[in-house]
């Protein structure tokens, strides 16, 4: 949420003369810029305040969470006790670290799988003509319209039949299929992999596999990273599917685990679980933030490329 003026200067410094277009040439007046900056500033506060609250309250005891101002620290400093409780089964609901490990496995494998499948399917839809291509594509898209809550029971019955209840595959396999990913990859490949290039490669005798691996994939890295990130986030935050299919806390991902911890903390017939819950919430969002920072350049490059060449 930097101000446009500042970021213009920054970009100018970073990329040279191409970006040094004065603001007024975009048709923006200084007043407009200020207003827009204020609005985005307000949004930044709106988004970041809860995160700040998490950081502060993860350092408190339960009585202090309720009894002291939410946006300032209080003694005693309890962060390390709260964090170390994440490694133990403090609530009877299971161990936080185990849920974190599960989430990493589910999100990691589902994201890699979804990226590979989306790239293949997207390439197929974008660059091959076959009977039923359009119908098939619309079928894939239409699955976006079915709310998962409405199919909860049939989903469970099917899972029970094929032995996917209480199985990690029950979580990973369906998460590897991403209609949004397929759509994105189709659009991206349409925009950034010229047909002529593929024809030229075929002419030179490259096999289809080689074309896909050596030409299509390298040209679509920003798109791939986008799908990867989107899937990681989707699986990381998925609550409903694991809630239905898992009845063992050793298999829970963070979402369901935190919810059971929250239930234990709420009815509170027991020790101080609320600050542990808050610390758990904080640790839950850190990996996603790190992932975004790490992959940001690919992600941003992807968005730009799609918009200029499409």
């Amino acid at each position, binding site marked *: 949420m930097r101000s446009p003026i500042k970021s213009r200067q920054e970009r100018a410094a970073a990329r040279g003369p191409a970006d040094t277009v004065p603001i007024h040439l975009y048709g923006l007046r200084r007043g407009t810029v200020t207003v827009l900056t204020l609005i985005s500033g307000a949004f930044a506060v709106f988004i970041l305040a809860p995160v700040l609250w998490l950081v502060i309250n993860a350092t408190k005891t339960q009585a202090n969470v309720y009894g002291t101002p939410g946006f300032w620290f209080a003694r005693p400093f309890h962060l390390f006790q709260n964090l170390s409780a994440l490694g133990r089964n403090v609530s009877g609901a299971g161990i936080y670290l185990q849920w974190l490990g599960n989430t990493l496995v589910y999100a990691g494998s589902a994201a890699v799988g979804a990226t590979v499948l989306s790239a293949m399917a997207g390439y197929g839809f974008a660059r091959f003509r076959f009977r039923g291509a359009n119908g098939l594509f619309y079928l894939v898209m239409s699955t976006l319209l079915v709310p998962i809550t409405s199919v909860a029971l049939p989903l469970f019955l099917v899972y029970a039949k094929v032995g996917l209840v209480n199985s990690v595959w029950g979580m990973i396999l369906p998460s590897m299929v991403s209609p949004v990913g397929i759509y994105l990859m189709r659009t991206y490949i349409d925009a950034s992999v010229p047909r002529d290039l593929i024809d030229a490669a075929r002419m030179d005798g490259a096999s289809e596999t080689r074309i896909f691996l050596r030409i299509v994939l390298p040209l679509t890295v920003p798109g791939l990273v986008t799908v990867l990130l989107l899937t990681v986030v989707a699986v990381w935050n998925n609550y409903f599917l694991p809630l239905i299919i898992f009845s063992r806390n050793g298999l829970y991902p963070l979402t369901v685990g935190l919810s*059971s911890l929250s239930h234990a903390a709420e009815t509170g017939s027991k*020790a101080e679980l609320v600050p542990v819950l808050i610390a758990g919430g904080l640790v839950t969002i850190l990996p996603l933030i790190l992932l975004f920072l790490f992959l940001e350049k690919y992600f941003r490059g992807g968005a730009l490329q799609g918009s200029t060449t499409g």
Partner: protein
Amino acid sequence: MAAVLLSACAGTDSTSASPGASGSQAAGAGCAAGATALTFWGWSAGYDLAVKKFNQTHPDICVKLENAGAANDEYVKLSDALKANSGTPDVAQIEYFEVPSLEITNSLVDLSQYGMSSVKKDIAPVAWSLVSQGSKQYAMPVDLGPLALYYNAKEFSANKLSVPATWSEFAATADKLHAADPKASITNFDPVSAQDVLALMQQYGAFPFSYSGGDKLGINFTGTAQTAFASFWQNLIDKKEVTTAADFSPAQWSNLDSGANASRLSPAWGPVGMQSSIKKTIGDWRTAPIPQTEAGKNLSGNWGGSTLTVVKGTGHAKEAAEFVKWFGASADSWKILSGKVAGAFPGYLPLLNSTGFQSATLPISGTSKPNKVFAEAAQNMDTAQWPPIMTAALTQWTSTFAGVTKGTETLPEAFKTFQQQMVTYAKAQGFTVTEG
């Protein structure tokens, strides 16, 4: 989004999907070879410790505890698994109010055939009758949540208030407190918390449901007692003499600690959790019997508490029955369940009536002995006749009663609306409904 595509995946991958397949392959580490494996779904704190103890002392049976979610999450999973006829546990933790719902779908094993009568004398009569229907017994009672008045003694004496014995004295005390200190309210009443309100209604002699098995169901939110109850609390809400914060919310805790609430109509399991959520008023809290509709009465209500049930479809009903019997009615088990970690309030009479239990103290209430009052309350409760439609009732309740908290409707109005909603729902489910 997964469902449509799932069949495609599952078709090709059914072989690789087997390692995690469900079922009662509970025998894990720490179990003797040849022991009967039981799967147990439960969520309460400390249950793992009790299970461990059981497995140590019963080498022939090996119980594996799985947390399949708390309360409604678990009930949904259980009902899904029952429909799929696969993946059901042998034993499941079920709250009292949900037992009839499972009973009517024929999902529970009748325990009376497994020699439960030997422990009947050890269980609080109200708990026993909550899980029985005629000669049949559908669950083993574990803990209870009798209500008492938990009040801030310092605040009471600072404002020269005496402890109210009846609800009319309670209202007068509320007036007096609010006049002395306009920022103070006598207590908190959360209209959205169905279980809280229903426990108070039960205590008020205004429990809205009547049910004794079968397809006949009585629903009455608009009778004389129910309307009196609703008007009583609406009057206090209107005068701002009670707050309407959500139960267990930060607002409730800070109200109790700041003096904005001078008392809490607390279940027996309440003080332990409250103790870790407040700090300034630790040591100031005392316990008194909950106010009565008439002087001389001595009635309490029950909020919370669980049972263990044996689920139909188990291949080991006898062993499962032995486990639930031990869990709810043995000194070994209660030593753990009433301990620091679990903190459950016993329905097990040998413990409930023991001097050691009744003279226990908590830092939050200084040298006073809250368990004495709560234990007495546990002996003075009527049996709530929970209807077999509680899942729907609890879901509907939240939206129907939200307006009372917001001040856009009154409690008597919400009762009227809820009456209609429940009658319509119950009729659609095939019940013969009596109103009033």
